[in-house]
């Protein structure tokens, strides 16, 4: 009942106030999944957050024939709370990405019933015991939508009912995975598509501190 039927902004549990690009459909297909065992371990984020990456051994449930063990459990802990994500590492046009998904949102049953699981996307760079995560730039995408310069299936959803301005709306991508991938491949290298500012709250640099 929980995750599959309901609405969710996947990263509510994170401290960010809903400014990540959310999609109803995953950004990857089964054939794009890449599993790197060396990625597992415990990392410390540049914002003092803690990241524990483990192999997700159960069936992730997105693809009929998907084999278990091809994804990661990511346990993220910041100053306030801890959340558990299922993440898929996948490659498109020789670039690695992480698709984040929150399968078990916390809260009362009634609250959980009001949520729909969403996918978020981050570009990933791997180097020696370091992972750099650059989230898909929602600000850039919103600007394009507001200026009518982008065409991809989406919905504008009002998240903050107390406000009437544009900031109270967020965009949820409703495009199928095929269209999402075409867009990422074509415009993924746009300098503004992914947050790259080192001081940005949407760029994480994780340094491995222990193997798990």
């Amino acid at each position, binding site marked *: 009942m929980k995750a599959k039927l309901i609405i969710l902004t996947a990263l509510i549990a994170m401290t960010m106030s809903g400014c990540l690009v959310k999609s109803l459909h995953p950004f990857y297909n089964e054939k794009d999944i890449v599993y790197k065992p060396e990625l597992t371990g415990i990392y410390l984020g540049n914002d003092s957050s803690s990241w524990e990456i483990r192999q997700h051994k159960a069936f992730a449930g997105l693809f009929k024939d998907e084999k278990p063990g091809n994804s990661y459990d990511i346990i993220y802990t910041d100053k306030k709370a801890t959340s558990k994500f299922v993440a898929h590492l996948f490659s498109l046009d020789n670039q690695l990405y992480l698709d984040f998904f929150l399968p078990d949102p916390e809260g009362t049953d009634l609250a959980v019933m009001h949520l729909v699981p969403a996918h978020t996307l981050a570009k990933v760079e791997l180097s020696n015991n370091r992972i750099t995560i650059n989230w898909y730039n929602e600000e850039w995408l919103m600007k*394009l939508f507001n200026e*009518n*310069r*982008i*065409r*991809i*299936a*989406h*919905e*504008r959803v009002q998240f903050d009912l107390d406000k009437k301005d544009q900031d109270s709306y967020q965009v949820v991508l409703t495009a199928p995975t*095929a*269209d999402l991938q*075409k*867009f990422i491949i*074509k*415009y993924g290298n746009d300098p503004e598509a992914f947050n790259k500012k080192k001081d940005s709250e949407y760029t994480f640099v994780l340094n491995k501190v222990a193997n798990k």
Partner: protein
Amino acid sequence: MNDMRTVNIYTAMMKIPKQRWLQHLLFWLLAFYILLRIFAGSAGIEKIDVIYTLIFIATLLPGIYLNLFVLISRVLSRKRYVLYSFLLLLCIFAIACLNILTFSKLTDIILPGYYFISYYEFSDLVKFSLVFTGITTLLKLSKGWFLLMETRNQLARLEKENAETRLDALKKQVNPHFLFNSLAGIYSLVLQNSAKAPEVVLRLSDFLRYVLYETSGERVDLTKELSAMNDYVELQKLRAGKEAEVEIQLPSDTTGRQVAPLLFLPLIENCFKHGIKGASGPVFTKIVFRVSGDHLQADFENNIGVSADEGARKTQGIGLVNLRNRLDLLYPGRHELKISKEKERFTVNLTIPLYGKTPLPGN
């Protein structure tokens, strides 16, 4: 009932603007509206949807017009159906490829700052392409069909008018004087209790029947045509008198040959009208028909009557002009008409091609 319906549809079609570019503009405006409604998201029509739809239609245009202006008119119209199907299929695939290429690559060059992808898979684009080429092809063919119907109607009207005109003209070709003179000649023969009277009545009857009822077609049997001309000459002999030398030679091999009807009558009529009539010296008329291969040669020779008045000469001139016009229409570049006039002799030589040996149905 069907014809009436066709006429109604045709009448309705004719209310559509006749300028071709306006018809095309209306079609594409309608297509634009429908596609825009399909492409627009749930939030309604955005500017980006308008731009996308315009570009989408632009990718259809080369293939659609290639089909309309080249494939249909140069391949399908020549009944090369297999080749047309193959080329149409290529055209449909090319439209789909152009659409993918445009939204994958070209839009970034044409419209920098706008973010498009190719939203449809190749198979979906083939379906789009199929629908548009199908609709435009059907429209083009139905338009051609309505034009064909219009042409047929016009032809039928023309044929009817032509037949009426021809009948009218043929009736007028039988000079009333000829009729009166023939009847007067017959009257004279009857008074004399001549044994020739029944034969002459029969000739006149045959000639009139032929002229009035058997010359409505484009071609007539040469044997019948020459037989009628012979009847005419024989009837004219009654009027010419015994002093006149009247001779007509007919070919023997005329079976199955065909000619246009009543071509020679004005020429024979002229022989008697301008030769025999009012002549003071020796009068003669010699008419010779010869079949030479696939051609018929007709020679007309007569003396020139001294009292031929101005009106008669004018009539002769008009008759010859009409004959020339008719020959030009019937045998363009394939006939020969020579007219020569000496001191006391007027000669006309006409050579025309004969139609095949197949007898006319019912003849």
